[in-house]
């Protein structure tokens, strides 16, 4: 006898008339999924701005955001696997893709994107792999030996370091970054399409959904890269202070580099933020103006049931406040950090309000459903689709980055 669990019943409260089979079937992990893919896409676009459009001011950020988007890659898939009722069958999306489904493209789009990111990293780091392999040659110790083998494999046998070969690498990086931008946009835009094409859901169905998703994805991706970079620089500064004292020139240098980069990157952030909010507002105004059958229930959800989540937390705290913080002259590191955290929170709330908000009302338009996020898990279901599952997803890219950074140093390594 299997354990009898009605999926969704655990965390769904029904109010009014809701069809018997309706529950919050898409919960926190489906909030995490577009959020995480958004971070991946955003981080990659940021690194491509340097490689393709030669935005020199992003040079320092480019390498880091590229490696970070590699660490985010497996994490974009994690929420989906945690959400599937039959996770072991997930591979079927690659085996028998039914292309009339927006999800079916996931395997192919995602793999294409992964291939581009990994290849780009390979071209960026190939010279480094070869140098490491040469430097480690003949060094004693099992660890060094093992490391050398790893680097040897990573070179894929391409040891050439001539000027011509290095030039070819750079060209390849540029081409891959250029292809990568539309693919990253597509990866995330189509995550928006997954929702926007569900005609049964009055809140989701909108042709603007993919574009809104791309914009907010780029916003969250840039914000996360900036924030992570900021934290790492602070750590280095802290170490420099410990080693050399507060007034040392190297500390001042670090501070200057950090602040300069933050000011420049935040301009891009604000640009995309404005685009995202404009589109969301357009969507809202259009729904209000056209007053289709669903508007009555949508209005009560937006302005009563979920008012705090949408207008206070998402638009107010998540968009307006950080926008003002970044706009006030005399930007400081602390203010930037607060603004970035708020932006990340705002995009998360946007995902929440779309995914959970779209299920907050019944298909009957006569009732509501409330989602109680399971905090302390008491079975696998409440772990996977609860706070703990979400935190696992959040923690994973940082753990991965820690590991990957040992092989592909993206913070200290300078090529010249």
């Amino acid at each position, binding site marked *: 006898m299997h354990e009898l669990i009605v999926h969704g019943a655990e965390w769904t409260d029904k109010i009014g008339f809701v069809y018997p089979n309706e529950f919050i079937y898409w919960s926190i992990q489906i909030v995490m999924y577009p959020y995480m893919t958004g971070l991946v896409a955003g981080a990659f676009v940021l690194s491509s701005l340097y490689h393709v459009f030669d935005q020199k001011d992003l040079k320092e950020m480019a390498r880091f955001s590229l490696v970070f988007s590699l660490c985010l890659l497996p994490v974009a898939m994690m929420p989906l696997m945690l959400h599937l009722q039959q996770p072991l069958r997930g591979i079927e999306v690659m085996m*028998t893709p039914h*292309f009339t489904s927006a999800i079916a493209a996931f395997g192919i789009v995602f793999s294409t994107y992964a*291939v581009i990111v990994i*290849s780009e990293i390979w071209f960026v780091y190939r010279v480094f792999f070869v140098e490491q392999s040469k430097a480690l040659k003949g060094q004693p110790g099992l660890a060094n030996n093992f490391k050398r083998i790893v680097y040897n494999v990573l070179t*894929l046998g*391409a040891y050439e370091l001539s000027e011509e070969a290095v030039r070819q690498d750079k060209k*390849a990086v540029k081409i891959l970054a250029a292809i990568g931008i539309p693919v990253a946009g597509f990866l995330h835009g189509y995550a928006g399409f997954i929702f926007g094409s569900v005609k049964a859901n009055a809140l989701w169905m909108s042709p603007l959904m993919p574009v809104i998703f791309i914009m907010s994805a780029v916003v969250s991706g840039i914000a996360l890269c900036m924030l992570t970079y900021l934290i790492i620089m602070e750590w280095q500064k802290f170490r420099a202070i410990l080693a050399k004292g507060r007034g040392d020139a190297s500390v001042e240098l670090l501070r200057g580099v950090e602040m300069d980069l933050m000011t420049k990157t935040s301009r891009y952030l604000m640009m995309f933020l404005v685009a995202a909010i404009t589109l969301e507002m357009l969507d809202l105004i259009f729904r209000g103006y056209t007053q289709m059958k669903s508007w009555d229930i949508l209005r009560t959800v937006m302005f009563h049931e979920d008012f705090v989540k949408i207008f206070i937390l998402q638009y107010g705290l998540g968009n307006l406040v950080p926008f003002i913080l970044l706009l006030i002259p005399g930007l400081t590191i602390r203010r930037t950090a607060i603004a970035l955290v708020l932006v990340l929170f705002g995009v998360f709330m946007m995902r929440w309000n779309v995914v959970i908000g779209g299920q907050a009302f019944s298909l009957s338009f006569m009732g509501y459903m409330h989602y109680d996020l399971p905090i302390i898990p008491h079975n696998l279901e409440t772990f996977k689709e609860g706070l703990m599952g979400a935190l696992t997803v959040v923690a994973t890219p940082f753990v991965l980055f820690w590991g990957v950074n040992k092989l592909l140093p993206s913070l200290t390594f300078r090529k010249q």
Partner: protein
Amino acid sequence: MKNHVLRPLWLVLAAIALLLAVRYLVVPSDFGVNGRSFTYGFHRLSNVADWQKFPDKYLGKEYCQDCHEEKVTENGSSKHRNIQCENCHGPAYGHPDNPEKLPIDRSRELCLRCHSQLPYPGSQRGQLKGIDPERHNPGQPCAECHNPHHPDQEVG
């Protein structure tokens, strides 16, 4: 050494070849477009037969009649003739081998499904003979006075 640029590409092609090989092994041979279009008919064909093989649980009055002819005949002339035996006696699947006896639902709740009076104008429910279960002999099984097989007859 000239074309080191293409190395990742060879790797990708190898991965695709591997994927296709796995696909060949994993996907059932009858998987394909079997209906009117790819949109609505892309599936494993043998699943249709899987569903057709699903066992019946409710076997119908004709099945009951084979052994319980007098009961079915008695019921056949009553107002309750449209009610399937299995609605009260439970699905006959496996009976009389296993289970030998069917669990009979004698609860008031069963009768109240139709005979709890609801004041609904325009609905057939309002026209059915009904009672207020809280006033009409509460707690007493209906079958003590009313014969469910032939409700016009007293219980003999």
